[in-house]
């Protein structure tokens, strides 16, 4: 099947900062693509171009078969967008917000009213439906914003960091809602900073940094690329770092990362807790004292460390002016 969202060589510059640097992407109808990356990676810029809010400096994109530059109105009719910041009117009630958005999607009055009530019910906002939004919690606003994106039942949905800043409970609720949508046949492009979220929601994950794709695959493929869990060891004596690296090499399934400053060694392993025990025993035998030790799952930070050689925070500082 032909992709319903397609982009080739998207470039977007803000003064000297390059927000997108030749991004390609394609999403098949009825599937989810998760665009994973740190702040400033170009996620919001990519979504803004695909939703016609801004124009790319170079490259082409089509959504629902329409060129985003030539036919923005046709694109807008086929998409729903829910951004990082809830785009709702504070003074209006939840119901009034949805009815207004429905009407502006050119739905008739009765249809907009019926669909608003339906979505308020679906997103567990019935009790708050007739209260002004200014009294809503952050999670309620996000759900209302998402409902606004869905009111006209668009075949394509763009969600830009839908759960950033939400508490775990609200995040879980939103995930359930999003999964339900895709079960109904909606095509979804989602951006996120969380590996866990990308893994939970999407089959297809694209990791981007500095406006470029750096990895692409299923959650399992990416994890294999990262080599499963990590053993993190802090050695007591800085002079032991080199020796500890040698000892731990036999357990590593990928490249070890050594931070001389914090005396912390990060070792990708495979096999979980038994490997951790064996590694500790080996260090003990070699006479290397450790002050801290742990086993953890790969994080986005590890993805970046593995793929780009730098941590996500560095990216964040470098790109903080991009306006994401």
């Amino acid at each position, binding site marked *: 099947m032909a992709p319903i969202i397609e982009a080739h060589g998207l470039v977007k510059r803000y003064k000297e900062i390059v927000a997108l640097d030749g991004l390609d992407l394609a999403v098949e109808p009825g599937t989810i693509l998760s665009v994973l990356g740190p702040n400033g990676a170009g996620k919001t810029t990519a979504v803004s171009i695909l939703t016609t*809010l801004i124009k790319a400096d170079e490259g082409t994109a089509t959504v629902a078969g329409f060129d985003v530059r030539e036919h923005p109105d046709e694109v*807008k009719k086929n998409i729903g967008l829910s951004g990082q910041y809830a*785009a709702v009117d504070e003074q209006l009630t939840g119901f009034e917000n949805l009815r207004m*958005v429905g*009407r502006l*999607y050119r739905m008739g009055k009765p249809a907009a009213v019926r669909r608003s009530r339906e979505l308020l019910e679906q997103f567990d906002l019935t009790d708050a439906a007739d209260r002004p939004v200014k009294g809503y919690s952050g999670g309620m606003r996000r759900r209302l*914003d998402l409902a606004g*994106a869905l009111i006209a039942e668009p075949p394509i949905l763009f969600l830009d960091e839908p759960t950033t800043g939400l508490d775990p409970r609200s995040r879980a609720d939103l995930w359930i809602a999003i999964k339900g949508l895709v079960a109904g046949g909606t095509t979804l492009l989602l951006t996120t900073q969380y590996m866990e979220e990308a893994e939970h929601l999407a089959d297809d994950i694209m990791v981007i940094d500095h406006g470029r794709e750096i990895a692409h695959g299923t959650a399992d493929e990416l994890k294999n690329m990262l080599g499963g869990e990590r053993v993190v060891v802090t050695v007591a004596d800085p002079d032991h770092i080199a020796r500890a690296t040698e000892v731990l090499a036999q357990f590593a399934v990928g490249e070890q990362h050594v931070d001389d400053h914090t005396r912390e060694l990060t070792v990708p392993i495979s096999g979980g807790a038994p490997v951790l025990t064996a590694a500790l025993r080996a260090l003990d035998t070699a006479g290397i004292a450790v002050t801290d030790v742990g086993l953890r799952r790969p994080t986005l930070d590890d993805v970046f460390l593995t793929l780009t050689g730098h941590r996500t925070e560095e990216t964040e500082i470098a790109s903080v002016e991009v306006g994401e």
Partner: protein
Amino acid sequence: MTKLKYAFIDAYVIAQRNIIRIKRVPEILVFVLISPIMFVLLFAYVFGSAIDIPGGSYREFLIGGIFAQTVVFGATFTGAGLAEDMQKGIINRFRSLPMSPSAVVMGRTASDVIYNSLTLIIMALTGLLVGWRIRSSFWDAVLGFGLLLLFAYAFSWMMALVGLVVPSVEVVNNASFVVIFPLTFIANTFVPSEGLPGPLRTFAEWNPISALTQAVRELFGNIPAGTPPPEVWPLQNPVLYSFVWIVIIIAIFAPLSIARYQRVTAKS
């Protein structure tokens, strides 16, 4: 044709939203509506006791000017409302919708007609309290109020552009006062324009606010008997001249405001 139809439907939806917002925060309206009362009382009693009009009541002469001045001042409400909208999250929702690009500005100027009507009602009631009377026919009076409302609507479009050009709500007030003060004071609003020095007099005579004031005074029958007829064309035909200005202002500022809205929201 469909485009035009949806431009009106979308504007109607936005106007409806603005009216709900006014109902939710009536405090805004209270303060905004106090100013016309203040204007009427202040000018009627402070200036009204100091200035004499040959053969008539200055207070009655004054009310027409205050009506004209207040509807022009009221247009800042439009600018402030739009400037506020542009800073709110909802504008991001509007940007993502397949709605008509003129809807936000058209809806705003439309909903402000309601606000201007309220202002006029309150001013007229306050005027009646201080002794102003309509001394003309019913239909002349209707035309008088209609002309004021239309003029207010036209000025809303001008202030809409100001609201979309300035960066924040606070600047709207300052920016618009720079335009509104000279326009409303170098006119026949408070003093007869015949007494003004040369260039100011010419400005006052051709100032649309003067024509509006003159039109309102005539339509409400507030020109004292025995007042010599005006010497210049705009004041001899004030209703027609006011209408011409209403058309000119809308023709210039409606396209400019809509284009400005599109430019601001298409930020890249």
